[in-house]
């Protein structure tokens, strides 16, 4: 969806351009540039990787107190041009300046803004219209919504204990927040500004992601070793996909065409590839994988998958046409999450 939005915008831009001029431009200038952002929990920085070369292009320092201040969850704006990073310290009850959400401009790789998010923000999600960021506040068992433009917190709701994953539905109506200790997903009605219900899912749920059409939500259960599939219309768990008790799944990523779900299996150092039509595992990628992948993201064109590997401090690159690891790239210490930013093609 992110990609198609971009294509429409580029198409409109091109509509006012002269075709001959476009033809004269180098081919690479007409393509978006993808940048991979890896939140390194223990070195308190962000590794930026250029997907054209799969080399580290830059390291963005988040804090000069690594070990005490941690960047963890990340989210990308719908246009791909802003990466949001949740940052926290180890004193969730204190109003410390380290508890915040940063916005990184993908084109410049500079921090373009920040706003406070108390309560140990762990993971974040951006609304489809790009105006809101939602965060799971782990220490407070809350899900909170923030206005991107002003930084104002406009909503806060009680969710399960040890809040973890968060996602906003593609229709911008619902926020799902997972909680590790209660094994739940809390569904927040954005317009009504209230909790609609709590759903029991697999044991120790970590991350939730919606399908591209918004009809399903996928929830990884780390100790359960499963993916819970939620029918978002009925708001019930309709299926579980068994990955094995030793799989320890964490982040999940839906392919842009919606046909595959990629799951980072921290326990087995594997990536599970799931056919979303059958909800069956069609491939388990282990060869050349880094150790303990937690983070996972797909490029907007769907051709590459990147994983953040916390034990090997690296990023593995998977070619989605062959489902093989084609590269491993060093990252910072404790690679936690990964997102793909976009530098727009020259208009």
């Amino acid at each position, binding site marked *: 969806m992110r990609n198609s939005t971009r294509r429409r915008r580029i198409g409109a831009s091109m509509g006012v351009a002269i075709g001959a001029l476009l033809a004269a431009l180098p081919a690479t200038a007409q393509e978006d540039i993808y940048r991979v952002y890896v939140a390194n929990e223990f070195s308190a920085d962000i590794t930026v990787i250029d997907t054209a070369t799969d080399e580290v292009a830059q390291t963005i320092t988040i804090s000069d107190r690594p070990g005490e201040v941690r960047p963890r969850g990340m989210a990308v704006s719908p246009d791909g041009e802003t990466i949001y990073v949740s940052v926290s310290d180890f004193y969730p009850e204190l109003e410390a300046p380290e508890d915040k959400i940063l916005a990184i401009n993908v084109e410049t790789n500079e921090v373009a803004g920040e706003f406070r998010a108390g309560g140990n923000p762990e993971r974040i999600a951006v609304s489809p219209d790009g105006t809101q960021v939602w965060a799971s506040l782990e220490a407070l068992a809350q899900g909170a919504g923030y206005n991107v433009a002003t930084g104002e917190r406009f909503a806060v709701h009680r969710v399960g*204990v040890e809040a973890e994953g968060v996602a906003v539905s593609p229709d911008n109506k619902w926020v799902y927040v997972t909680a590790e200790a209660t094994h739940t997903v809390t569904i927040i009605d954005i317009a009504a500004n209230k909790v609609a219900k709590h759903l029991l899912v697999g044991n120790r749920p970590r991350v939730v992601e919606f399908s591209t059409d918004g009809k399903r939500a996928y929830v990884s259960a780390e100790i359960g070793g499963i993916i819970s599939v939620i029918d978002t219309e009925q708001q019930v*768990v309709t299926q579980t996909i068994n990955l094995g008790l030793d799989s320890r799944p964490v982040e999940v990523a839906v392919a842009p065409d919606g046909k595959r779900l990629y799951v980072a299996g921290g326990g087995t150092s594997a990536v599970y590839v799931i056919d979303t039509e059958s909800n069956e595992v069609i491939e388990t990628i282990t060869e050349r994988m880094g150790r303990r992948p937690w983070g996972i993201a797909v490029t907007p064109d769907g051709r590459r998958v990147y994983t953040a590997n916390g034990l090997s401090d690296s990023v593995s690159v998977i070619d989605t046409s062959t489902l093989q690891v084609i590269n491993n790239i060093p990252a910072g210490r404790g690679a936690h999450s990964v997102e793909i930013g976009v530098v727009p093609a020259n208009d």
Partner: protein
Amino acid sequence: MTKRSLFLPVLAMGSMLVPTTSFAQYASSPFYDHTVALSQAYGIEALVLRLDLATEFSAPYDDELAETLEEVTGPDYARFKGTLGQQDPALAADLATALAEVAEAVEAGIDVTEAVTTARELLAKAYAAIIPAEVRDTDAFTGGVMLNLLLAEGGVAEGYEEAVENAEPWEYPLGWAALQRVKALWTDVAAAATPQQLEDGEEMLAQLDTLYPQAEPGSMVGLNPEEAESPSQRLGGILETVVNADLYPGRELPRLAAHLATVTEEACAIYAEQPEIAAETIYAVYDLYDAHLADVAGLFAPEAEEQAGTSFAALISADDGDDEREAEASGDAEEEEGEEQRTAAESCTQISETLMALKTALGG
């Protein structure tokens, strides 16, 4: 309001239709198969950890450490005291004396070496007397003990968290002692490990070693309280594959609630005649309830969760030695004791019913 009606709003939510998943990947489930035995084993292990600290440090002890050491006669002892008394009354009497001597020596600030040596030997005998050989000699049971040492209260992860988050530095040595025990038990089960499992497990132990370089607590300011949890959890996962046993009983919450209800019901039936033995079951049930069910109960049925908490507290305190002494001092010891046990039996039944209702509420 009855307990059952407490859960009706939850059922009405229609949100509990959770498809079940088979967890037959591993050969056994020690927390289901040996629920009480694992709690008894952990009770003995927890006492041994305190004895280890008593000799790791020297008298006179820091006040907070002394309090920790004096707990050798506390709840962890109650986890197996009744069964030991039934199996081997002489050994039980000797152990009670030895543990009391340790506590008294700690309080007096005198050398505990001899008392600790005696208590250690008796605890080893108690372990053999209480836990059948065909149970204790299995890797699965050892895995269960190790998981408790890693993740239960007073264990590796929790000891570190308590020390950092709640500024209780003397929880740290307990975590350190638990880690030393985990490492010793790891060598017992490592024979069954593949080279990769061995490497992974030892890497996690090495990570934990860096968090626990010595028994003495240092400055814990600014550290991550959750730092020991991640490697402990990962080691738990590795351990499952090595010992081929499901070590996370919370994977199927309705099943766990039903199991605990059944186990509790069995204890309720003997509460009047054998309160100490029945209380051992309550300790075991409480551990698993608290670790896996309490939070989710608090979210879906907070009144029931509160009721369960009250009932557990009543039962565990019903077995407390101080209460018994107070009753005797009142001159109505027999009457008081009978009343106490009636109350305990009622609380026991309440727990069982609450757990069964919780099972239903969780979709079981």
